[in-house]
């Protein structure tokens, strides 16, 4: 073992970084779909659906992602489901991100002024029409900056997939370090790569926020 950092190591890290991006995209898409369902359930007219989806959000937000990863990767096989590291990481992140995005988006839907609902009701639009044609388009505008901001959390959280043996950026760093024993250097490189992935996104989020946010009537009388 031993030796010094060479191009092969960097290639390996680059591959890990690609998997980090890939896993982040899986989490965003899976979690986004789950989150959309959760958000709609959270504002459902049915109390039962609201409570059920609320319980899901509370449960997931009260559980570390690490534990969710362990449950899917080590727990499910004891029930007879064998799960690959990629599947376990994807499923865990989807479940986790879904709860958070669902809650963020619920807030966005509810922050569309109540008067917009009433105006739509007054025009005899059905609940579904109100939601799709009036409320959601406005909620999406409100939701864009915090959703982009949450992408940063997703990218960082994918590093936890290393605990189930999924070789993303953090895990590939560990593997290289195991042979080179240069923790300061290697983890510094890892940190820089994570930063390079996250920083542009958080900048974008801030920019979106500054660009005036959602369009809405300027005068909102009581």
């Amino acid at each position: 073992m031993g030796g010094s950092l060479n191009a092969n190591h960097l290639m390996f890290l680059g591959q890990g970084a690609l998997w980090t991006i890939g896993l982040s995209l899986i989490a965003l898409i899976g979690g986004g779909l789950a989150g959309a369902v959760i958000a709609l359930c959270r504002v459902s007219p049915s109390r039962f659906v609201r409570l059920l989806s609320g319980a899901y959000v509370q449960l997931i937000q009260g559980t570390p992602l690490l534990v969710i990863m362990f449950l899917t990767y080590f727990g499910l096989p004891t029930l007879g489901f064998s799960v690959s590291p990629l599947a376990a990481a994807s499923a865990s992140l989807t479940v986790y991100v879904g709860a958070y995005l669902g809650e963020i988006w619920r807030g966005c839907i509810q922050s569309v002024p109540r008067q917009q609902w009433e105006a739509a009701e007054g025009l005899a639009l059905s609940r579904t029409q109100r939601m799709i044609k009036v409320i959601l388009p406005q909620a999406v505008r409100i939701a864009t900056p915090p959703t982009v901001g949450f992408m940063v959390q997703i990218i960082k959280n994918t590093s936890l997939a290393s605990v189930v043996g999924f070789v993303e950026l953090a895990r590939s760093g560990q593997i290289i370090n195991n042979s080179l024993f240069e923790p300061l250097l290697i983890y510094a490189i890892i940190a820089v790569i994570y930063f390079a992935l996250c920083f542009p996104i958080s900048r974008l989020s801030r920019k979106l926020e500054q660009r005036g946010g959602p369009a809405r009537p300027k005068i909102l009388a009581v």
Partner: protein
Amino acid sequence: MPTQEPIVALRGVHKSFGALKVLDGVDFEVQRGNVLVIIGRSGSGKSTALRCIDRFETIDQGEIVVCGHRVHDPRLNLRALRQDIGIVFQSYNLFPHLTLEENIILAPCSVKGVSKKQAREQARLALAQVGLEDKLHQYPEQLSGGQQQRGAIARSLAMQPKVMLFDEVTSALDPELTGEVLKVIEALAADGMTMVMVTHEMGFARSIADTVVFMHRGKVHETGPASILSAPATPELAQFVGAGF
């Protein structure tokens, strides 16, 4: 519907928000083509009474009949009721993500199944009625408050309602913009639109109202033709009018 049947009728309407009694036995009727103006202090229940007509509030007791719809009945077909009623709010509430034209054609297309082409034609007519025919493709935020409010009126008119409700529609506007909105409402009245409005514009109430309802502590305290504003019968109305509201 026989011509004698009122378009809007409230009979013995009671409504409480928790312990607060907001409507304490309210009665009034509006005949076809008439304008009823509700006045009163803040908290007298006038906006609540108006909102009950469109079932934005449910009532505890009494009955409300609008264009033959029994509004107090839990089995009411809410969307059918709201197709017969147009309502305009204080805060305009145009949809900010849609142009004026899209705002106007949304309900006719999705509720009444009118074709886009026909709805656009109706939108043009409705906008001409409120003097905004050149603002078709503007977004609400590009319009002044008065223009937005006129746009909101046009949006309601495009649904061809049988009665229009106006809830303090000029309260958020400065005097100049108030004038342009009131002119539109006056023209509607002249066209024979049945209307119920809550307003603080006493001069306007005097000129447009067929019936004035003065609400005080959740009751119709005094009612009559617009002339009661010049010769109030009760000290409360005298004080209210005298206070220059």
